[in-house]
């Protein structure tokens, strides 16, 4: 195989994995009506599950597997894929970065389709810098932190970050924009526009869904994502070279890789084309020593060299590559940060002392400590939640729980017969429970209480029973009592007053979601009474 073919092969594989990633991203939702195989749920009462293995890329990511093992002491399902990636890295170097990683492909494409820098400036930007040690610092910090018991790797892991940004910010943004256009067309008075909008809706709904998905604080996630993309204008693949902790991990493993860049300095005419096209700032120029740990194995230098002064070869001799330039300070700093930040993260007391009442975790979540040890903040559960109740936290779970999932009942509610979030969680922070278990045990995520000052019948305004009507448990956790209250102007008003039976209530929040008192509903859900915690209980 000629090297030119190999570069094209790389491009094809990169495109394939990026498309596969986007396909799984789109498939991370209940199928739309036209595609559902209804007979399954109806005939066997099996739970409705997704058809595609949407967690594949999370399994492929060794950093997620490793941190879950270190902090949660658990081998995630499909961890062998990640193990395989490490094994391949031992032989081929960072091929994951160059060929597979969809986030890397995005950076690669942005940087090569329209390079921001020209000529000498690009050559200078592609020289190795001490800044590239930052990724080792981050890796050490995340690994030590994971051992101590705070798993923050999801914040920086490329797969989790890319998925979160796309699923919570970029996709819903596009979807909401398109939907508003179609709604405007459907409501116009021109029949042609209406027909076009219906047609367009059929095409785009399988991808973006029939409802507008919205996630609190998604603008922040999206902004960070755009900033990370923008960094490619400073240096090509800025993220992969300087920030990516997964790249750092794979870089360390590539030390023994027999795939080496052979250099023939006598042929070199010093045209610097190799450095100009280097994606990883891995010093491909024959006068420099090749940095195996930085090389993304894109084969650009080999391909571009007009004098054949560079070539990738499998070396028969067992010889170590150049040591990854971790830097003593990065190592020490990483260890210190890894030791201190998990402890600092507990200073707000969220984990041990107080639970924020709004922190309602998805059904089947592990106890808070175990949850934070495993949650990768990837946003997959939020993407699949059919009612859009699951949202990333900001401060509700404390610093340690940034961007972990919680239910916002004014936005959605936990559907009684649904247990989809647990079935897709890549690390098992949300246990994979069945709907039967959820109902029969029962798994409570919180409990509801009536705000009598706001409640329409309690405050003597009008009769209303919406919360009771919607309560899904049997017998209902909300019960009514007939009463005459004094209405406006002292008139007698016959109403039914709602009460909550805390023993029955599972905290699903449909009452809060549908309560006609908008803004701050008259019946609200708090996390107290959640069955995952022994402490956060109300009843004996």
């Amino acid at each position: 195989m000629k090297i030119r073919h190999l570069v094209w092969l790389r491009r094809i594989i990169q495109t394939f994995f990026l498309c596969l990633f986007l396909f799984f991203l789109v498939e991370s939702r209940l199928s739309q009506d036209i595609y559902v195989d209804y007979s399954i749920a109806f005939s066997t009462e099996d739970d409705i599950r997704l058809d595609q293995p949407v967690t594949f890329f999370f399994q492929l990511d060794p950093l997620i597997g490793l941190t879950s093992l270190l902090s949660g002491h658990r081998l995630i399902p499909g961890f062998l894929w990640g193990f395989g990636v490490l094994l391949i890295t031992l032989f081929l170097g960072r091929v994951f970065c160059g060929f597979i990683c969809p986030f890397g492909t995005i950076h690669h494409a942005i940087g090569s389709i329209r390079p921001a820098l020209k000529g000498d400036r690009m050559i200078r930007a592609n020289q190795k810098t001490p800044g590239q040690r930052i990724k080792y610092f981050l890796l050490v910090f995340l690994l030590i932190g994971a051992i101590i018991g705070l798993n923050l790797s999801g914040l920086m892991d490329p797969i989790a970050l890319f998925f979160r940004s796309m699923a919570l910010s970029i996709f819903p943004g596009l979807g909401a924009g398109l939907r508003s256009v179609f709604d405007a067309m459907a409501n116009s008075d021109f029949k042609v526009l209406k027909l076009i909008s219906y047609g367009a809706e059929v095409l785009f709904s399988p991808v973006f869904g029939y409802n507008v998905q919205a996630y609190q604080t998604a603008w922040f996630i999206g902004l960070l994502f755009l900033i990370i993309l923008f960094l490619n204008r400073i240096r090509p693949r800025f993220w992969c070279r300087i920030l990516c902790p997964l790249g750092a991990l794979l870089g360390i493993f590539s030390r023994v890789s027999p795939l080496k860049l052979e250099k023939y300095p006598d042929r070199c005419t010093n045209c610097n084309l190799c450095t100009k096209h280097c994606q990883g700032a891995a010093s491909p120029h024959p006068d420099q020593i090749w940095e195996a740990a930085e090389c993304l194995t894109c084969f650009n230098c080999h391909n571009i060299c007009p004098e054949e002064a560079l070539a990738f070869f499998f070396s028969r001799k067992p010889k170590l590559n150049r040591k990854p330039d971790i830097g003593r300070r990065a190592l020490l700093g990483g260890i210190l940060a890894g030791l201190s930040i998990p402890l600092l993260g507990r200073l707000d007391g969220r984990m041990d002392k107080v639970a924020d009442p709004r922190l309602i975790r998805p059904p089947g979540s592990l106890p808070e400590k175990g949850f934070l040890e495993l949650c990768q903040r990837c946003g997959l559960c939020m993407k699949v939640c059919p009612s859009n109740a699951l949202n990333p936290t900001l401060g509700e779970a404390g610093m340690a729980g940034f961007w972990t999932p919680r239910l916002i009942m004014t936005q959605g509610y936990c559907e009684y017969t649904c247990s989809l979030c647990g079935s897709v969680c890549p690390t098992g922070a949300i246990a994979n429970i069945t709907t039967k278990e959820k109902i029969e045990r029962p798994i409570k995520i919180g409990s509801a209480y009536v705000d009598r000052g706001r409640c329409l019948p309690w405050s003597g305004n009008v009769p209303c029973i919406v919360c009771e009507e919607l309560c899904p448990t049997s017998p209902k956790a909300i019960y009514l009592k007939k009463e005459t209250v004094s209405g406006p102007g002292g008139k007698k008003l016959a109403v039914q007053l709602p009460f909550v039976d805390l023993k029955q209530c599972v905290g699903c929040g449909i009452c809060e979601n549908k309560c006609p008192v908008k803004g701050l509903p008259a019946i609200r859900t708090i996390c107290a009474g959640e069955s995952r915690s022994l402490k956060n209980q109300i009843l004996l």
Partner: protein
Amino acid sequence: MNFDRPLTRRESIRKLFRWSGYVTLAGATQWPLFTLPDAWATEAKKGFIIEGRGQTDGFSVKDLTRKVFEAAGGIKRFVSRGDVVVIKPNISWARHPRFAATTHPEVLSAVIELCQEAGAKRVRIADNTIHDARRCFAITGAGKVAKETGADLIYPRSSLMRNMKLRGNRLDVWPVFIPLVEADKVINLPVAKHHSLSTLTLGMKNWIGAVDGSRWSLHQDINQSIVDLAQFFQPAVTLIDAIRIMTKNGPSGGSTDYVAIKNTLILSDDPVAADARASMLFGLKPERIGFIHLAQKGGLGTYDFSKLENKRVVM
């Protein structure tokens, strides 16, 4: 027409005017047809109420549905060839059919098949569900029925909700699920079950699932709201599914303990009579149920069965 010759500008303008003239003329001749007073066509007609009951073990729900329609003079009386028929079942809850919270899928599929036999161009199932629509379609069996019969499932979404004037006593402008308005014929296909505010939810209350907006505030004056909606959505016929009825813990249910098997179907072109007859299955008096009483007062129909043609079908 000669396509080889290039069209001059003058010619093209002339052609354009001629064709638009034709179209205008065609439209103008049609126009009086639309504005004919309704009173011309309608003639005082006696309503009917038919109760079908399956008494033998293992009777077929499908056949019972068919027989009930036959007793009313056949489905052709309600559905004409080429019609777009929209069926409004109650599939609001993602519950298995055995809990009687939703319209039984066998009744649904029987009605769809009847409509198709009558030559309906399209049969659609439309309900603005409470739970997530995809899950409701899957778990209630409506999706399976749609797949087997080839009927369209309409996914409720914001582009299909349009503000309309309901001209009710209490409700004025409200967002309405438009497939139910744009249909040639609408068939109301509710399930009979308990409800904690309106006592029962039957045919007329089923229209709460045909509107959007802040429909949870309708409960503040539930009876008037039901009547206002029922006078706006006038179905060709109402078929109440009382094969299983939910007697307690409604309308969501969730336990088979409160489900009573009645094996009954009630068909009527009078929405009030249908609801009244169904309420008797629960051992209740129709006049004691707020919205039925109010609907009779408002002239939507009657629960005085002697004014109707009564029929019974037993299997």
